[in-house]
C-alpha cells in the first residue's frame, strides 16, 4: 500500500446512476464499516465492484474512461454496465471525499456516454460531462466543470474538446473550449498549461484519483487457496488480487521484515481457533503458511491442508490487518462474503475483527457484502458492549423492485445495537420454516 499523504482525504461516499440495475442515483456513504445485505441478484456486488472498477480506471492508458479489462466487470462491455431499463447509454458516477480543514477536493462527478459513430457503429465511450468541486487554491475556492463540445467528434486518441467553466469563490468564468485527454476517468492537464488554476485543479484531482487507484483493495467471493509453498523473490505484490492471491507473499515479506501483520492475523486464529499461524521456510527461499495447535507447538500443517474456511478467511484477515496499519488516509477495502466457508460460530469473531478496525483512531474504511446473520449480530453485540461506536457503522439493504431496478435503504443503529429499521422476515427464514413445521405437526397430531 502506498504511503499516506496529509492532504489526501478518504473517500466518503460514491454515487452511481444508470449503472447495472441502479437506474436512479444511488449513494453509498462509506463509514469505517459499511455492510451490504440483500437477496441474491439484488445488486450488492454491482455496487461493491463499482469501487475497484473506478480504481482500475484511473490513469488507464486505453481510450475508454472505464477500464473494461478490470476483473471487477468480468468481461462486461460498456453497454452491459448500463442499466437496461433505460435507453440511455450513459453512466454517472460521483465520488465524494471527507471534508476537513486543508482538504483539497470534495467532489468529482463524471458522466460517461457511449455515442453511435457516423455509420451507427459503436465508438468507445467517452466522458461527456464532469465537474470538480471545492478545490482550495491560493486561498480561493475553485470549481471546474467541463462539457464535451458537441460540435467536435470524439477523437480516437481519447482527446476531445470541452467547454470549460471555472468558478472562483462563486464567480463563474468561461474558459476557451479546450482539448482534454482523459486517461481513464482522470482528465489530463498537460495541454492546459496557460491556465494555472485549471492546471492546478486537475492536478489535485489527479493526485486524489491516483490515491484511490492505489488504495482500493477488493476481494471477491471466489477465492483461491494459497500456494502450498512459494519462492519469495524479495518483494510482495502491492495489492492482493481479487481472488486473494498474494496473501502468502505479503506475510512472508512481513515476517522477514519483522513486521506486525503476521502477528495480527495469527492473533485472530489463536484466539478463535486455538491455532497459531506462521510462515515456515520449507526449502531455501521457499515458504509456506502453516497452522498448528497452540497446545502442540511441534505440529505444523500447511494452511491448504486445514479446513477450507481457514484458507478462505486468510486473505480477508490479511487485507483487514493491512488496512488497520494503513489507517484513514489509506485503505478502502471492498470485501465480498468474508465469512465464506467459515463455520457460523466464527462469523461473530470475524465481525469483531472489523469492528476493531473501525474503532482505530484513524480507521480505514471497509465495504462488506455479506449474507451472514451472525456477522450482523456480531456488529450489534459490539455496539451494545461499547466496542463499536454506532456512528461508525452503516448497513444498506439492497433490494430489487418489481421493474427490475435496484434501490438501497440505509439502516443505522442506536447505542443498544437496535437497527433503525429492518426488512421484515430477513434472517427470520429459519424461524418461519420452524413455525410452519410446528403448525403442520400440530395439524397432523389433531391438536
Amino acid at each position: 500500500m502506498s504511503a499516506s499523504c496529509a492532504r489526501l482525504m478518504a473517500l466518503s461516499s460514491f454515487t452511481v446512476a444508470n449503472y447495472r440495475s441502479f437506474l436512479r442515483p444511488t449513494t453509498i456513504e462509506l463509514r469505517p464499516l459499511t455492510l451490504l445485505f440483500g437477496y441474491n441478484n439484488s445488486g450488492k456486488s454491482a455496487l461493491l465492484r463499482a469501487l475497484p472498477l473506478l480504481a482500475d480506471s484511473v490513469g488507464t492508458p486505453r481510450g475508454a474512461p472505464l477500464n473494461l479489462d478490470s476483473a471487477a466487470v468480468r468481461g462486461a462491455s460498456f453497454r452491459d454496465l448500463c442499466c437496461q431499463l433505460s435507453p440511455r447509454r450513459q453512466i454517472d458516477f460521483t465520488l465524494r471525499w471527507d471534508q476537513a480543514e486543508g482538504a483539497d477536493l470534495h467532489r468529482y462527478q463524471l458522466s460517461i456516454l457511449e455515442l453511435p459513430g457516423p455509420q451507427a457503429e459503436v465508438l468507445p465511450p467517452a466522458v461527456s460531462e464532469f465537474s470538480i468541486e471545492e478545490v482550495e487554491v491560493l486561498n480561493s475556492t475553485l470549481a471546474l466543470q467541463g462539457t464535451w463540445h458537441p460540435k467536435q467528434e470524439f477523437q480516437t486518441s481519447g482527446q476531445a474538446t470541452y467547454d470549460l467553466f471555472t468558478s472562483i469563490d462563486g464567480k463563474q468564468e468561461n474558459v476557451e473550449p479546450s482539448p482534454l485527454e482523459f486517461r481513464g476517468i482522470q482528465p489530463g492537464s498537460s495541454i492546459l498549461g496557460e491556465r494555472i488554476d485549471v492546471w492546478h485543479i486537475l492536478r489535485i484531482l489527479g493526485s486524489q484519483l491516483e490515491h484511490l487507484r492505489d488504495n482500493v483493495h477488493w476481494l471477491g467471493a471466489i477465492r483461491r487457496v494459497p500456494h502450498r509453498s512459494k519462492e519469495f523473490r524479495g518483494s510482495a505484490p502491492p495489492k492482493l488480487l481479487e481472488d486473494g492471491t498474494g496473501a502468502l507473499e505479503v506475510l512472508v515479506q512481513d515476517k522477514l521484515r519483522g513486521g506486525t501483520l503476521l502477528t495480527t492475523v495469527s492473533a485472530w486464529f489463536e484466539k478463535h481457533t486455538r491455532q497459531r499461524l506462521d510462515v515456515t521456510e520449507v526449502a531455501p527461499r521457499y515458504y509456506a503458511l502453516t497452522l498448528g495447535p497452540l497446545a502442540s507447538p511441534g505440529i505444523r500443517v500447511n494452511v491448504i491442508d486445514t479446513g477450507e474456511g481457514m484458507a478462505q478467511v486468510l486473505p480477508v484477515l490479511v487485507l483487514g490487518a493491512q488496512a488497520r496499519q494503513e489507517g484513514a488516509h489509506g485503505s478502502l477495502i471492498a470485501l465480498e462474503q468474508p465469512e465464506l466457508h467459515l463455520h457460523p460460530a466464527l462469523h461473530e469473531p470475524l465481525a469483531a475483527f472489523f469492528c476493531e478496525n473501525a474503532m482505530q483512531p484513524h480507521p480505514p474504511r471497509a465495504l462488506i457484502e455479506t449474507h451472514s446473520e451472525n456477522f450482523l449480530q456480531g456488529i450489534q453485540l459490539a455496539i451494545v458492549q461499547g466496542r463499536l461506536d454506532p456512528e461508525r457503522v452503516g448497513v444498506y439493504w439492497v433490494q430489487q423492485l418489481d421493474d427490475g431496478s435496484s434501490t438501497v435503504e440505509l439502516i443505522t443503529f442506536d447505542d443498544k445495537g437496535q437497527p433503525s429499521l429492518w426488512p421484515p422476515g430477513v434472517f427470520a427464514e429459519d424461524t418461519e420454516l420452524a413455525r410452519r413445521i410446528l403448525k403442520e405437526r400440530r395439524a397432523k397430531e389433531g391438536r
Partner: protein
Amino acid sequence: MRVIIEAPLLVSAQQARYPLALLELFNLCLDQDCHTLEVEPLDAPELKRWTDTLTPAQQKEIEFILDASAERQLRDPPASVVRVADVEEARWEGTVPRLPLRGAVALLRKPLRVLIEGVHDEHFLHAIVPHFYRARFEDWSKREMLKLEHRGGLQNLGHALEQECQARERRLRLFVMFDSDARKRGEPHSESRKVARFCKRNALAHHQLERRAIDNYIPEPAIERWLKQKHPREFDGRWLPRLQAFRLLSDEQRHHYNMKKGFRGDREGAGLADIFDRFLSTKPGQAAHLEEGFSPAVAETFLERIPDAWLAQDGQAPELMELFEKLLRAA
C-alpha cells in the same frame, strides 16, 4: 405486540386457575407472528417449573416461540408492549400496562385496527406500500392481523377516537392514519392538528400525512395512466393540458393542490392558499387549466398498485417508509 410475562405468573394461583389461558397466550404468538413473547427474567426458574408440566411437543413449541421472539427483538421488535402479571385486574400505572392472564389473551386475539377516513385510504395503503414492507403488510392484512376500518372524515374520526379510547385496552390495538388537510407545507388544518394532539395525549400509534390528502400522493405518471384509462377519448383535448399545467407546479404546490376540485374548489371553500399566488400571476394561462381538479374520482388511481419507482421519483418514499414502519410495529 410485545408480551412480557412476569415469571411469578407462571407458578401463580391465577395460572393454576386458568391453565389453558397461558397455553393460549403462547398459541396466539405461534399463530400470529406479529406478536413476540418473552419471560422476565430470562433465566427464571419458574419457566422450567411450568414447562416441566407440559408434554414434550408443547415444550418444543414454547422453546421455539421464546427463541423466535428473542430473534425479532434484535431487529424489529413490536412497538406496543404489555406485561402479563399475577394481578387480578389490569394496572395502568407507568408506561407499560400490566394485565392479568385472561386479559392479555383477550387483547392478543384482537387484530390491530387501522382507523382511516374512507375506503380510498384503504386502497391508498395497498397501492403505495413500499416494496420493503409489502410482503408483511399484505400477509398480515390477509390473515386479519391488521383490520382496516373507515371512520368517515376527520371530524368523524376524531369523535370515533374519543369513543375508542374510553376502553384503555383498545388503545393498544389501534393505529390511526389521517390527512393533514394542510394548505401549505407544515401547516395542518386545525381539525387534523386536533386529532394528532388527541393521539399523542393518549399514546395512540398514528400517522398524520405530511401532504394535504391521499390524492396528493398520486405520482404524476399514475394520474396520466388513470386519465388515459378513464377518459381515453378526451385525454388529449381535455386532460393533457391540465396534466401539463400540474407538472409545472412546485413540490409544495403539488402536495397541497386540491386534486379533486382544483383552485375553484378552494376558492369556493376556505380560500386558495397563498403558495399559488406566484403561479397564478406568472402563468395565468397554465393556472386556468388547474381551475378544475382531476375530479372527485381521482383517488380511483389507487385501485392499481403504484410502482415503487414512481413513488421514489415523487419524493414520497421516506414518508411512506416511516408510515409503514410505525404501522407494522404497532401490530
